[in-house]
């Protein structure tokens, strides 16, 4: 079998284990009940779902992975590097895939018109990075650690510090939006979203790993994180 044939086999996407996912409607998160469909349908999966866009750089502008700024323009807060690895269910790196990251600033405020909290904006921190994974499926972000923030009208639900990720895998079915949390944060144990995931392994997989301070650059703490997108390679037998 040639490499070309292997690449062209479709990827198998199996139903998600509900225990590894938040429920679609979360108690205490009222909008989930306004917007989640009452009924979901099963359908046969076809070429339309097993294919998907690649190289979104043809359609979307890249913004780079270094958003902390430098010198007098450096953003306020704790400088961090986040080493993200994007893999499929086989553990194979997903290369050349667009990743969108966005986050609050160190005070817990988003540079977004919807965020009307009183925490201050940081003129040096737009909080948005968009970049394509390299040949090993990785991206190293240079940013600042986000602050936590209270969710408006939520009866004192505070979101723990987190990064948002929007990623593409190898098919339209592997499109995914998720969040990354930081280890050792007291708010993690109170977050209505993180707590809604039944499986403790799946919850822990949402939390990045802090590297020893003896590793990485002198001026930044380093976190490692892995995102697993849906899909694994079909074998020749299955095809």
């Amino acid at each position, binding site marked *: 079998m040639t490499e070309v044939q292997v690449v062209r086999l479709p990827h198998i996407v199996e139903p998600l284990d509900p225990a590894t996912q938040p429920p679609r409607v979360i108690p205490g998160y009222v909008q989930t009940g306004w917007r989640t469909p009452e009924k979901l349908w099963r359908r046969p999966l076809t070429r339309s779902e097993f294919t998907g866009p690649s190289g979104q750089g043809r359609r979307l502008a890249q913004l780079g992975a270094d958003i902390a700024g430098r010198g007098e323009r450096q953003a306020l807060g704790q400088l961090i590097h986040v080493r993200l690895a994007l893999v*499929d269910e086989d553990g194979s790196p997903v290369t050349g895939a667009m990743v969108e990251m*966005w986050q609050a600033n160190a005070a817990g405020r988003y540079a977004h018109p919807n965020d009307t909290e009183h925490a201050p904006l940081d003129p040096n921190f737009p909080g948005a990075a968009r970049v394509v994974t390299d040949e090993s499926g990785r991206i190293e972000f240079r940013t600042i650690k986000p602050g936590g923030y209270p969710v408006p009208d939520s009866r004192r639900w505070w979101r723990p510090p987190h990064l948002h990720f929007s990623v593409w895998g190898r098919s339209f079915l592997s499109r995914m939006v998720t969040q990354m949390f930081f280890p050792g944060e007291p708010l993690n144990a109170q977050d209505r979203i993180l707590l809604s995931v039944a499986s403790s392994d799946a919850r822990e997989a949402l939390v990045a790993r802090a590297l020893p301070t003896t590793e990485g650059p002198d001026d930044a703490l380093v976190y490692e994180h892995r995102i697993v997108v849906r899909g694994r390679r079909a074998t020749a037998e299955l095809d």
Partner: protein
Amino acid sequence: MPRLVPTAEITLGPFFPPSYVDAGANDLTTCEGKTARGEVIEIHGTVTQHDGTPLHNVVLEIWQADANGIFCDAHDPRSQEADPGFYGWGRAATDAAGRYWFRTIRPGRYAAANGTLRAPHVNLVVVFSGLMRQLSTVIFFDDGAGNGTDPVLTSVAPALCARMLACGEGGGRYRFDVVLRGARESVFFDD
């Protein structure tokens, strides 16, 4: 090698950067300076929640075949013949009145695994604050050939098929409203 568990999906929340909905990302008729082949069409509509309220800043993404029914992806067996002027993916966001708009090419048909021709269709994904996972539906056309035998369209209750049909308004313009929840709820798939 043991299978890894896909990462838990979590809503994009209310603060998705407006800059991520790039100008022109909802116009699929050109790609890197090349013009797509085929008939230009427009698909537009509104996105509403359970009480009929139109929703602002809902992100919609589409994925479709080119005018000859070929996807711009190496997994398509005819990808070598794909239209270089058609990328097949686009993104739009709703305005304050809940309206979205795509300009694209009427998708062609292709043979499914069992030999049946798929009806012309556009895959639509909705991502928004309060949706823990993306919602997937499919836009078919009310004047589309082969709707009656399409394996996906015929997989839902017949009474609901009309909710997957974009309504022609003439001049290549189609209306497709998205209702996230409620009596007129759109047909969404759990894959």
